């Protein structure tokens, strides 16, 4: 089973998935997404990576920008984005289950 990816996202597929998961909680602006991803994964997400992924997600219609508050602009998941995220996480979960099952079968 192939690992799920967002078509056309290339090396930003993983950051994009992390952003979608972060936004599944509710709208967030860029810095809030970065800190949320960092606290969830333990790995920092750089601002360049964040915006490269945001541009692609917005262009794909998976997220949408809300009116800015001060200079911060929040983003939120669209309906298409939520469905896409659901499919991705389900596929990842199945993939993880398969891997764990194989490990159990081959464990000494």
């Amino acid at each position, binding site marked *: 089973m192939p690992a799920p990816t967002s078509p*056309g996202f290339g*090396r930003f*597929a993983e950051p994009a998935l992390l952003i979608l998961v972060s936004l599944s909680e509710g709208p967030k602006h*860029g810095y809030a997404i970065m800190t949320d991803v960092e606290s969830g994964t333990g790995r920092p997400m*750089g*601002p*360049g990576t964040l915006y490269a992924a945001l541009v692609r997600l917005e262009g794909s219609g998976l997220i949408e920008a809300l009116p*800015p508050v001060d*200079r911060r602009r929040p983003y939120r998941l669209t309906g298409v984005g939520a469905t896409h995220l659901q499919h991705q996480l389900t596929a990842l979960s199945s993939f993880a289950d398969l891997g764990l099952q194989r490990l159990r079968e081959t464990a000494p």
Partner: protein
Amino acid sequence: MTRWLLRLYPARWRDRYGDEFAAVLGERTLGPFDVLDILLGAIDAQLHLRGVGARSDHRKGFPMSLRLGGAAAMAGGALWLVAMTWILLFDSNVGSGAWVLLLLASVALLVGLAGLSAFQARQHPVLIWAAFSLPAIGALLTILGAAMNGSGNEYWWGLFILGVVATIVGSGLFALATWRSAALPRSGAAVLGIASLISFATFVAQSGSGDSNGVVALFVVGLGAFSVGWIVVGVQAIGLDRQVAAAGTV
């Protein structure tokens, strides 16, 4: 700093995202990781708006850094050898073409390092970017020292030598990290590692023994090994890129 980094992005990108991006940058103290990430993001934005990045996927995005990094490593290695040999054996005069060549070599090595690191960082980001930092700093110091040559500033030689040493030692560490990640062929990493070691050893020997012609010639041999190391890594990166293109996967 923020304004300078923003200017690296295309004007159209800045019109849409500039304000909010600047707000994000203003929320935290920017470290080397952030600056590098922003530089790579700016390159991506430039390509994305020209339609290259928009089509990028695993078949194109990483091989692009692999291809660019490989070509730059080859060019940097070759230019480094020519420039250093020129300076050490023939002409160390301020303002000579050799120094311009050395500037170009250092810039090419920096681009090569960034490209090959970006390719490998998928699997071992912390290790690779940590290994990237020392030779990158070395290349920048070399560039700074060479650029200050002739300015009347007495520190240029110290900066230059420090940059050369950091580039050589850092290249050895980068080779170790490349060996560890195994994203690029290990034989090339071994060649670069050994070559860096030889280069550093001959540098130390040259520093401790004065400027006798024999020792300087030995140092040139060491620099030659260093250049060959980078050229081998570059050739292998290009070869891997071709294999990837043929197989259609990374």
